[in-house]
């Protein structure tokens, strides 16, 4: 084992909260080590609804959560311009819905008071005919609708932009690095013991250790002899590889819950379930029942939903704060920053609960606690400082496309991931050669991801640049992508095949619950294309 590295702070967990804390503390001048057992944003963050929203449904429970999350969403929208886009919901009202149109509009009128905080427009009310003019696929018995605006975001890029900025300010960030134990000196936590991607065990000393492990928070806390109780809740989404509608749609489930069909930049997420989860956090399966539960709700407001071909599912576990005797849906999305000194674990802090829209605020409050513990005085600057790629305006996409020999669409997508750094990504002779045509992704971008963005597997490339996220689900690009990444990382031919096989096996687990007739056509083509791999 090599000599331990020394840091002011070690942050455990590379979801959006952990990455946000690492960025915040680095910008305050502290030396930070960030460790993540999988890939950046590969847990709860990546399985979210990909929205930074205020959560109008919390108006029934807790206006403060709505206010805080809309305010913080406003900051995120300003500092991550390249990766956010407007998402406009139609909320149709049907006969016998839990809320009639007047109640629904009242909720939106109240929500409109918060909308300016996140630079969003107020709602409008639509008659049944107007609603069907805006979205002709709505059911015939819709009696009216209201609209609501939110922001969509690529959470994987959001996490990585935070990691990038932390690294740029001196942090050390390690993905595929699992914490095995906490180092202790009597009643004080003094660092972590971890295993890196090469299997080697190392130690890092830190004056403060922050537990930002999301649903794994209780597991890390136990290492410090502390107890943090969560009420983990499983959330499932169905993923369609297209925008089904330009307007996102909400629907009421059979048990009265609000579900969303969210139109993102080139795909649609339909979800989510919200069920208490007691299983293995590292292996969250999607059940066909859960898929049917979601489709049943949307069939009522959007009857043609079953004619569309989903390409996969996602499943994640929310790290909700513990509360007894409440339905999952009624649980608060509040968060708690816990200093474990009273538990006999000095120098150990946990951040638990919360939601993506409030990640920056959660990071700020956690960093404030850490700075107090260290006696370090420096203000938080994350609310106003742009994330990497947002320091200046992007050049017009047709110009970038012409200069780099790619289509305007490819240039637009590249800018959505890298902002004003897009041209630098294409400083490579392979700039115009496409690997993934659905997204689209060039060889140069993929090579850049392997070289500069800590991509170590094809699944990492899916998260970093959207590899295989489109309609072919990797059928057409996975082998070529393995060759590009493999040449950067020095993989042998066997390692390239293994990487492709591992990716396809993982993708299959998410796809199996939603394969319909058209899905099988896709599947058979992919199986044929990869037959050589599976023998």
């Amino acid at each position: 084992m090599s000599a331990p590295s020394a840091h002011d702070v070690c942050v455990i967990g590379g979801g959006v909260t952990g990455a946000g804390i690492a960025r915040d503390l680095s910008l305050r001048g502290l030396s930070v080590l960030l460790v993540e057992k999988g890939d950046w944003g590969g847990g709860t963050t990546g399985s979210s609804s990909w929205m930074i929203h205020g959560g109008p449904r919390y108006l029934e429970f807790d206006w403060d959560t709505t206010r805080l999350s809309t305010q913080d969403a406003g900051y995120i929208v300003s500092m991550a311009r390249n990766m956010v886009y407007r998402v406009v919901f139609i909320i149709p009202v049907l006969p016998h819905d839990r809320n009639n149109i007047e109640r629904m509009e009242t909720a939106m009128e109240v929500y409109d008071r918060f909308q300016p905080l996140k630079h969003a427009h107020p709602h409008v009310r639509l008659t049944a005919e107007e609603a069907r003019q805006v979205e002709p696929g709505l059911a015939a018995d819709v009696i009216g609708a209201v609209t609501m605006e939110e922001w969509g975001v690529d959470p994987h890029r959001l996490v990585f932009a935070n990691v990038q900025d932390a690294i740029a300010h001196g942090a050390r960030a390690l993905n595929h690095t699992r914490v095995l134990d906490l180092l202790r000196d009597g009643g004080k936590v003094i660092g972590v013991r971890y295993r890196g991607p090469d299997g080697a065990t190392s130690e890092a000393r830190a004056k403060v250790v922050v537990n930002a492990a999301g649903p794994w928070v209780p597991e890390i806390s136990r290492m410090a002899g502390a107890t943090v109780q969560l009420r983990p809740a499983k959330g499932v989404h169905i993923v369609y590889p297209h925008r089904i509608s330009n307007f996102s749609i909400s629907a009421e489930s059979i048990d009265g819950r609000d579900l969303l069909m969210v139109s993102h930049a080139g795909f649609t997420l339909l979800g989510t379930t919200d069920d208490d989860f007691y299983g293995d956090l590292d292996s969250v399966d999607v059940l066909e029942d859960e898929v049917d539960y979601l489709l049943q709700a949307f069939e009522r407001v959007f009857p043609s939903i079953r004619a569309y071909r989903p390409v996969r599912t996602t499943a994640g576990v929310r790290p909700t704060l513990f509360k007894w005797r409440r339905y999952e849906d009624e649980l608060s999305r509040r968060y708690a920053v816990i200093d474990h000194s009273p538990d006999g674990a000095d120098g150990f802090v946990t951040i638990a609960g919360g939601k993506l829209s409030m990640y920056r605020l959660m990071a700020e409050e956690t960093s404030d606690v850490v700075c107090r513990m260290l006696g370090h005085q420096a203000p938080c600057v994350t609310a106003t400082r742009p994330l990497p790629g947002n320091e200046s305006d992007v050049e017009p996409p047709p110009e970038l496309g012409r200069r780099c020999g790619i289509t305007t669409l490819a240039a637009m997508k590249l800018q959505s991931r890298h902002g004003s750094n897009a041209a630098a990504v294409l400083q490579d002779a392979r700039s115009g050669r496409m690997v993934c045509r659905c997204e689209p992704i060039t060889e140069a971008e993929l090579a850049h991801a392997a070289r500069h963005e800590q991509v170590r597997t094809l699944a990492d490339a899916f998260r970093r640049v959207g590899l295989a996220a489109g309609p072919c689900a990797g059928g057409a690009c996975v082998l070529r992508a393995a060759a590009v990444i493999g040449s950067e990382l020095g993989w042998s031919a066997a390692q390239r095949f293994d990487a492709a096989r591992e990716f396809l096996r993982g993708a299959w687990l998410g796809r199996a619950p939603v394969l319909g007739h058209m899905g099988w056509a896709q599947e058979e083509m992919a199986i044929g294309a990869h037959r050589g791999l599976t023998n």
Partner: protein
Amino acid sequence: MARADSLAKLAFAYGVHLTRRRLTRPRSQVTKLLETYAADGIRPLLKEERERHPQLIGCINCGLCALAAARIGSVRLPDLATSYMRLYARLGEAGSDLSGDSPELEAASAACPVGVPLGEVTAIVRRLAAG
């Protein structure tokens, strides 16, 4: 306590809303909605496009259409049915990629194993990209 407080405030807002509805005449807001979001490329499909939409986005990216007819504008034909149709109305400036001659789209559609009507796909992408 927070919940009781929230429900009380919502109840008050509901009373205000009902009173306002009684005192004012409702006006159509659909034009305002469409104008507000046109700049973001958020535009509705037509009724007939909606009915055909599941077929229009059925491409599985096998590439057979490219053998029958290679490109439309600067876009390889399978990319039209996959990446351009993924976004459809949010195409913005990417509509310029499609300017130019249309190839033998009927022959390309005949080669498609899942029956994507590429002529219709071209028409809808061009219409929505033009705004």
